[in-house]
């Protein structure tokens, strides 16, 4: 095994892991606050990939030729519209079921996921779509034969992901809104007694999770260039794995779990076999669930009252 392959896989793994981490945030925050897995979250991410392509196409057809502006506008638009999806999903699929048994919102989540997949398939078509490679810039280290290649998009992915996570970490840890989120997560009834509109906080958490998934969707679309209505499924399950790995309910856990999953998946692909990388990722999930069900940073489940 050559050093450059190893280094290349570390770069790829870091990129992939940042994406998993961003999407995992949505799973972990929603689970933390209402104790359910939002199975439609991967599809929210998928929607943001389509939004990226649509926004870029609209901007370029309007004659915008500043790439940084187009990217920024696309990011903002994708985040806003995806956040609106997150808000709406909570409103129509989960809120009416609050207080019912645990199974009902789970079924509703799977239903919502199918609605999004089929809705996008109907409106956008089933074939794979793509955006042209907009940022070809690449850094190379090494000589002609053995080199490590880092694209500018990969650098953007890592930088933007880490910055978003840091911002979110600050928001949850230091602001009034963040304190209200944590209070609602720890004891929803008590939070309400203290004057917190807990329904509003739950909506906010869906909005934040969706906006983070939108950042991931924009970055991935810029990186790979192609997507279809089904990408939310596999990526969603991977990000969910990352959330469980890090300890579901824990924000730093989602980031850590994403990075570990991304890195180990990339190293496995580079050193062992690419075809089995998904099998590897899910084996990791099974192992974590057997040996450390609360994940790396998770706390043992406390039954909610």
């Amino acid at each position: 095994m050559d050093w450059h392959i190893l280094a290349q896989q570390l770069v790829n793994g870091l990129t992939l892991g940042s994406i998993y981490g961003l999407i995992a945030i949505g799973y972990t925050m929603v689970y933390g606050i209402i104790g359910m897995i939002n199975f439609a979250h991967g599809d929210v991410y998928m929607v943001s990939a389509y939004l990226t392509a649509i926004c870029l196409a609209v901007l370029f057809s309007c004659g915008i030729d500043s790439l940084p502006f187009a990217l920024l506008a696309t990011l903002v638009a994708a985040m806003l519209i995806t956040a609106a999806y997150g808000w709406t999903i909570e409103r129509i699929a989960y809120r009416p079921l609050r207080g019912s048994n645990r199974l009902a919102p789970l079924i509703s989540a799977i239903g919502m996921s199918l609605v999004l997949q089929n809705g996008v398939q109907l409106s956008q078509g089933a074939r794979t779509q793509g955006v042209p490679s907009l940022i070809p810039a690449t850094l190379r280290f090494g000589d002609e034969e053995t080199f490590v290649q880092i694209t500018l998009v990969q650098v953007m992915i890592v930088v933007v992901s880490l910055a978003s996570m840091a911002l979110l970490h600050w928001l949850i840890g230091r602001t009034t809104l963040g304190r209200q989120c944590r209070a609602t997560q720890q004891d929803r009834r008590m939070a309400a007694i203290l004057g917190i509109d807990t329904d509003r906080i739950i909506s906010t958490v869906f909005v934040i999770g969706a906006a983070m998934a939108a950042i991931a969707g924009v970055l991935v679309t810029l990186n790979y260039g192609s997507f279809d209505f089904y990408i939310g499924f596999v990526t969603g399950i991977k990000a969910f794995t990352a959330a469980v790995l890090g300890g579901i309910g824990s924000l730093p856990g989602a980031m850590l779990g994403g990075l570990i999953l991304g890195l180990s998946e990339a190293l496995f692909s580079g050193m062992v076999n690419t075809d089995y990388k998904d099998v590897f990722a899910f084996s990791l999930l099974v192992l974590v669930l057997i040996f450390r069900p609360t994940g790396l940073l998770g706390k043992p489940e406390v039954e909610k009252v």
Partner: protein
Amino acid sequence: MPEQEPLLDIQQLDARYGAIQALRGVSLRVERGEIVTLIGANGAGKSTLLMSIFGDPRPSAGHIRYLGRDITGLPTHAIAKLGIAQAPEGRRIFPAMRVEENLLMGATPLGMQHIDTDLIKVFELFPRLKERRDQRAGTLSGGEQQMLAIGRALMSRPQLLLLDEPSLGLAPLVTQRIFAILGEIRATGTTIFLVEQNARQALKLAQRGYVLVNGAIRLSGSGEELLANPEVRQAYLGIRA
């Protein structure tokens, strides 16, 4: 001068958990400036009454008026904004938050305007909390957690403070300390509605009291009257008639 309406006026309140009827036609009043206590055995419905004032469980019949206004159907968080605060059964502090953050949570209805002065006031009342302000609340002792729950409730500058068994699980000395502080809180103009199983101390402190049996009010009267009542003495003070 027209007679002022009571601060809290509960009429014919029913509340249920599915098939279990926890409150049956409860009527009671709390006037401004009083300490009123509600005593009763385990499962009598005391906590249910305090929680139903906050709309959870939502009463199935009857009315709750606060300053003359019917608040029976309001959402829980809206009731907190009217000037009612609760230190609930089991304290329900946020264990993973620091002590100071717990107190800040209590200030939610005021929108963080008076944080600094109010923190100072709570720390004057409970110096222990000041020493522990950066500690995780879950690491506090039971007495300190109770102080935190009361301090947190005070951060919203409530007119009416609801307390659910603040003495539960505390050593007698700590209980005495907390009851003394309740007197101080009342002296600052906050009205207190105190649920207790510690009937003797509660009735000594309170101006008036009610006795709840099986979800219904069985007796009411001034603190002294109830302390002298044979039924109360036998059932709640452990004195044979």
